[in-house]
């Protein structure tokens, strides 16, 4: 039986203990190679510090000597139930784009809050980003309980402060757990020092989380990546973004609206493939000689069609030092579509940490700000509701060849 894998991101304010928690998880689940522990010991000695779990994750010389995580890192650990891919995201505001890179791949999250400091700027910003990315399985870990004498009152206070904010952005945490990553309380083992807490440890909580649901039953969406000519056969390659593609399906090609039938599903060294489930990178041949190209989306006749729009409204998280400016042309990328768009309006400019509206009808959106933005296109763009087909409901904006913003489409009726 194949083991299940779950991707987990750990986020929170700088210095609230993300790397330490990960180090602790590794240590307590016996997932660290011996020479890794030796290496960490040596580095700690060289830096004149006692053994710090954080160094298990912080691999850059700079990270170790400055004590902050710069870039996201991924490692692996196991419980009885399954394997985990842990994504360590930097807490420092300078590296928010690295945090988003890490968090965008996760299926569950731990938001870590220092019991002695409470909710801080990056706690709120990271929480907002988790909400934007659509993450629903969230643990709040109130860390450094050892610094507040394992006090139930402090825990209750910090919990309330955190959940009050999370409520505003529509996140209901699955668990709120008092821990000390440094001392090992309630991480892998239940703490003797917090008898007042009777809920699960971090590991027990994680094991209750579910894998992201498959979208095999949703309406079909096949995103065309490229077209290859192989031995005289014209193979349309791409990915099933939702639903299940089957030989014989009557399909409609967007944006042209032309109709055809799936003749074969082509896979190397496999004969007679009948279907391709959601998430599959595959190739097809079709019955008619139609113009089909990268960026086209195929759906099944009779099923709910995606939307064809020349204007969309969405929430964008901006992550570039160069601002997004009203009136400018940028590149819009959604699934395999890539097309120019004009920034028509920035209806609201929002502080991603406090969620305060900084300005309405703004001219610019600056680094780390969130905007309610209207984008317009000269040709139609194919999009969908984020909840039913995430891949067609979210997009990135490229400016000067760099990914500079990520967004979720919020309004399809325009």
């Amino acid at each position, binding site marked *: 039986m194949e083991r299940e894998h779950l991707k987990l991101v750990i986020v929170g304010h700088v210095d609230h203990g993300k790397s330490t928690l990960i180090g602790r998880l590794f240590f307590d689940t016996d997932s660290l190679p011996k020479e*890794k522990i030796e290496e960490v010991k040596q580095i700690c000695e060289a830096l004149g510090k006692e053994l710090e779990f954080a160094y298990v994750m912080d691999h850059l010389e700079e990270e170790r000597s400055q004590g902050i995580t*710069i870039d996201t890192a991924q490692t692996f650990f196991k419980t009885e139930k399954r394997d985990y891919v842990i994504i360590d995201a930097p807490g420092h505001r300078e590296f928010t784009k690295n945090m988003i890179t890490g968090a965008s791949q996760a299926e569950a999250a731990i938001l870590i809050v220092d019991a002695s400091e409470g909710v801080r700027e990056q706690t709120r910003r990271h929480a907002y980003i988790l909400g934007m990315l659509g993450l629903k399985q969230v643990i709040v870990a109130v860390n450094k309980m050892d610094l507040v004498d394992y006090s139930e009152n402090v825990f209750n206070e910090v919990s309330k402060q955190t959940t009050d904010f999370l409520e505003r952005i529509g996140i209901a945490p699955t668990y709120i757990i008092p821990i000390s990553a440094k001392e090992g309380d309630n991480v892998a083992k239940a703490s003797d020092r917090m008898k007042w807490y009777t809920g699960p440890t971090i590991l027990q909580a994680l094991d209750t989380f579910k894998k992201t649901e498959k979208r095999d039953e949703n309406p079909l969406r096949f995103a065309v990546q*490229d077209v290859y000519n192989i031995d005289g056969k014209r193979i349309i390659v791409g990915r099933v973004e939702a639903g299940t593609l089957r030989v014989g399906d009557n399909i409609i090609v967007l944006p042209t609206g032309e109709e055809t039938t799936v003749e074969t599903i082509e896979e190397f060294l496999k004969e007679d493939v009948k279907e391709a489930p959601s*998430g599959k990178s595959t190739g097809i041949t079709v019955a008619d000689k139609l113009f089909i190209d990268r960026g086209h989306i195929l759906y099944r006749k009779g099923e709910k069609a995606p939307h064809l729009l020349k204007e969309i409204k969405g929430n964008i998280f901006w992550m570039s030092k160069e601002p997004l400016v009203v009136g400018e042309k940028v590149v819009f990328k959604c699934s395999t579509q890539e097309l120019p768009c004009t920034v028509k309006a920035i209806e609201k400019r929002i502080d991603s940490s406090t969620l305060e509206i900084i300005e309405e009808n703004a001219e610019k959106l600056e680094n780390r700000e969130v905007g309610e933005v209207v984008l317009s296109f000269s040709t139609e763009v194919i999009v969908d509701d984020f909840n039913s087909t995430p891949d067609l409901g979210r997009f*990135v904006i490229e400016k000067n060849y760099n*990914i500079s913003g990520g967004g979720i489409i919020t309004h399809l009726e325009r």
Partner: protein
Amino acid sequence: MDYLDELESKSIYIIREAYKQFKDIAALWSIGKDSTTLVWLIRKAFYGKVPFPVVHIDTSYKFEEIYEFRDKWAKKWNLKLIVGRNEEAIKAGMGPHMGKLQCCTALKTEALKMTIDKYGFKALLLGIRRDEHGIRAKERYFSPRNREFQWNYKDQPPELWDQYKSKQEGEEHIRVHPLLHWTELDIWQYIKRENIPVVELYFAKNGKRYRSIGCKPCCSPIPSDADTIDKIIEELKTTNISERAGRAQDKERAYMMQKLRALGYM
């Protein structure tokens, strides 16, 4: 789809993205298990007709088995094989005895630079994985390098929702890592499922096997009785020793990999 199908689909998607964006592309094939798996996935992505060259950076210090394997399968799979060597340094007697960092730099990094310049590659596909080494845990799928091959790990472009940095300006080239999300165990399970050929050195002989292969003088075998893929998979499920424990370049200094990586070592 099961777990291996998911890994495979993501890799094939990335390989096809890379080829769509960059026609001047090549794959680096060290002939090890990872890059051989990469070549296998590339063959799958293009239905057996690999549309770009496969580059082997040859230090001249590789194991005999590696050269044999390379020539046999390059022919069987109809690959456009380019062998890149820093002939000048090899003739001048460069070797690990002159310092391991110096040797890797001259025979790997420099040889790769020369090959990229000669053929004008704009992008390279590499079979590195995040779980291989701490520093690799921070890699992106599409990673820009400047002319001097430097990796600016402090300021990497964000990557989300399978949207990758697509173009580059000026003298940069892009490293593409389609296997980044695989683990060593995943690779072996996939090799087993797909029946991918691998160099014999990975299988135990007389109580020893190589877990990671490179240049002969700088690789040592680990004690092991795993002489089949199944036994290797079993061994990996229980081991507490890291994969690159037999690689000299990782041992020299804690930060050597980071230095090598910033200098452009693959």
